[in-house]
């Protein structure tokens, strides 16, 4: 009885307050946001959505996780074809070219302008902004969860070989791995060679060394770009990795085999890994008691003038075909995410980095990077802003890039299993990748990237 009474009272109070706050419209405008994160990260996104809804009364965002990036894109496409698409959707970095040609979006910068929000696009780190902008610099989507890879190294193990700093060149890495092996470490370095690691092994390596992945400035200048990783510095890199693998300096770690590289590093089994700054939190939470470790920028070959690394993660696209009221809500939501305070919340609870200079400065000002669990993450910003982006280090703009990454995984496995030589494997990667690009170009005849 009391329960019911209390319920009625709450209802009445709720109705009253809503009525007082918004005499004209009783209900906030609802709009959908679909995203691809799951588990811990999905809970953070849910909190973010709640914070947005609590911050104002006019709009209500309904946030739904679709499980992973692939599924989000598939479900959104299906919904779009059925006319039931969400207003805002999170699309991973490699889906950018596909999205740009889809004709299914409303450019983010236009949306903000129409709804009276002034965004300073120069505030975004250039390496992040250019990945999601047209060749003329218009932002089509807003970066959301952004990351870049770092080298994680075990300080305790390196101390055993008399080192107090992370190796800066690949030449040094080779020598250090050898020394670690001689010092009795079974697994000096762990890598994985599935499709996903194309990101740190092929894409980031090429960017740091200012080497192209494909012609036409990595695809920015046309759909007729073709791969050329079989004749860049990347060949030497794969050759070295293979050499170190054969010498037992590198072990392959993956989930299929029982332990992925992040676990292998956190447990102290392997001493060096290359992975996203997004894993910084995971390593901190799951590391072996008392283990000392740190992060550093990915190494480059001696004599290389280091360039900026590429952004990874995903961005928020606003889809076409929604009502003006929903667009107003979407714009308010993007503006909320853009806020430096949201950046602090987001980076504290995930491993992702702030995407704007103001967000980074705000977080520095709050002392975020001085505290133990977050210390080191500023290296990711240093890596992303190591240089002004060049024509090649703006990003990768290739169609069906997911399939090209899959082909990368296949050929790397063939190389590491001694089925083919490094050069043969990379030649096949280029040949099959070009066939994938051909197919993409045929699917969009006469179209050009914006």
């Amino acid at each position, binding site marked *: 009885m009391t329960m019911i009474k209390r319920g009625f009272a709450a209802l009445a109070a709720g109705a009253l307050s809503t009525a007082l706050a918004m005499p004209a419209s009783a209900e906030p405008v609802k709009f959908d946001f679909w995203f691809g994160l799951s588990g811990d990260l999905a809970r953070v996104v849910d909190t973010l959505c709640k914070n947005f809804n609590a911050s104002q009364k006019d709009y209500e965002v309904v946030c739904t996780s679709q499980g992973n990036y*692939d599924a989000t*894109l*598939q479900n959104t*496409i299906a919904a*779009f*074809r059925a006319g039931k698409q969400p207003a805002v959707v999170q699309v991973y970095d490699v889906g950018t070219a*596909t999205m740009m*040609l*889809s*004709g*299914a979006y409303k450019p983010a910068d236009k949306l903000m302008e129409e709804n009276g929000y002034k965004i300073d696009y120069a505030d975004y780190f250039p390496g992040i902004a250019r990945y999601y902008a047209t060749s003329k610099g218009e932002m089509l989507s807003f970066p959301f969860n952004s990351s870049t890879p770092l080298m994680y190294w075990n300080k305790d193990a390196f101390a055993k070989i008399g080192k107090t700093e992370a190796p800066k060149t690949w030449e040094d890495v080779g020598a250090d791995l050898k020394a670690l092996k001689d010092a009795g470490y079974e697994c000096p370095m762990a890598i994985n060679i*599935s499709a996903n690691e194309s990101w740190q092994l092929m894409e980031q390596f090429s960017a740091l060394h200012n080497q192209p992945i494909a012609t036409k400035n990595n695809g920015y200048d046309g759909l007729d770009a073709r791969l050329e990783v079989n004749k860049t510095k990347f060949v030497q890199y794969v050759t070295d990795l293979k050499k170190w693998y054969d010498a037992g300096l590198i072990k*392959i770690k*993956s*989930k*299929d*085999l*029982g*332990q992925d590289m992040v676990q292998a590093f956190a447990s102290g089994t392997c001493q060096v890994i290359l992975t996203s700054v997004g894993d910084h939190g995971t390593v901190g939470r799951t590391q072996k008691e008392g283990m000392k470790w740190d992060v550093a920028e990915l190494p480059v070959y001696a004599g290389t003038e280091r360039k900026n690394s590429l952004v990874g993660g995903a961005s928020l696209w606003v889809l076409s075909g929604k009502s003006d009221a929903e667009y107003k809500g979407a714009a308010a939501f993007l503006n909320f995410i853009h806020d430096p305070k949201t950046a602090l919340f987001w980076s504290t609870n995930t491993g992702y980095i702030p995407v704007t200079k103001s967000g980074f400065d705000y977080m520095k000002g709050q002392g975020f990077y001085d505290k133990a669990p977050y210390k080191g993450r500023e290296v990711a910003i240093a890596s992303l802003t190591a240089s002004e982006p060049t024509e090649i280090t703006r990003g990768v703009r290739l169609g*069906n890039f*997911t*399939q090209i990454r*899959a082909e990368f*995984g*296949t*050929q790397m*496995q*063939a190389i*590491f*299993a001694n*089925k083919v030589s490094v050069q043969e494997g990379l030649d096949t990667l280029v040949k*099959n990748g070009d*066939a*994938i690009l051909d*197919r993409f170009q*045929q*699917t*969009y*005849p006469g179209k050009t990237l914006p």
Partner: protein
Amino acid sequence: MEKRVTFGKWTIGILFAVPQLLLIFTFFYWPAGQAVYWSLTLQQPWGGGNIWVGLDNFRSILSNADYWNSITASLVFAGISTGLAMFIALVLAALTDRQLAGSRLYRVVLIWPYGIAAPALAMAFRFILAPEAGFMAVVNRVWPGFWDPGLDGADAMASIIVAFSWKYVGYNFIFFLAAFQAIPRSLIEAAAMDGSGVIRRFWDIQFPLITPTIFFLLVINITESFQDSFGIVDIMTAGGPANATNLMVYKIYSDGFKGLDYSGAAAQSIILMLLIVVLTIFQFRFIERRVHYR
């Protein structure tokens, strides 16, 4: 005299058939037709502007070495896993049928595996067969490098075969046991009194009498190994290493859903459908002749 219901007008008959036809059309012909249409075009994932390319999709698939590799892998997988699952189930069912002590317990326990969803059992086998952590780690310690499904294609193939067969042993077992139990006890007892041993009785009496079941299971197992293997491959090997376990059904998934190449995937599913049809016809044409129906 035979009585039968007749309809004065053919329209009434059609009327009664319409709901059924509608269902069949909606759930079978329409999607199948759609797949055929897609396979003859290049589909833009987001819709709008589809290009008619005729048989180009089929031509490009059939001229792709990776695709032929995927057909070979599917056939190897189907052959070995069907053989393994049926043989083990047959032996287990024959033993359980002999009503040894505890045979009722075996009956229950052996049926369980089929109730486990493919992804769940794939997860379990991923741990069991992991080279560094699971059961095979012990073997690897004795012979270093013996088991490495991460880089050795044959090992990866073996691991998905084991997982798939393990599941279908349970399924086959139910049918085999039912078939054995349908054989009149008196036949076996008579043979036993005539002095024939267990093996003799199996080959001369039981085996011929259960050939219809064997044939049925053969068709089902082969068909399922082409279609139900998806969850196991996705979790255990993701088609790797170097495409060694990229079975046809998995390739359709990764090209279509992950790669957003709807047309290529549609063409591949039509080829897969045709292959299953051909295999089934082959089985009915050549193997069914050896089956004894009562």
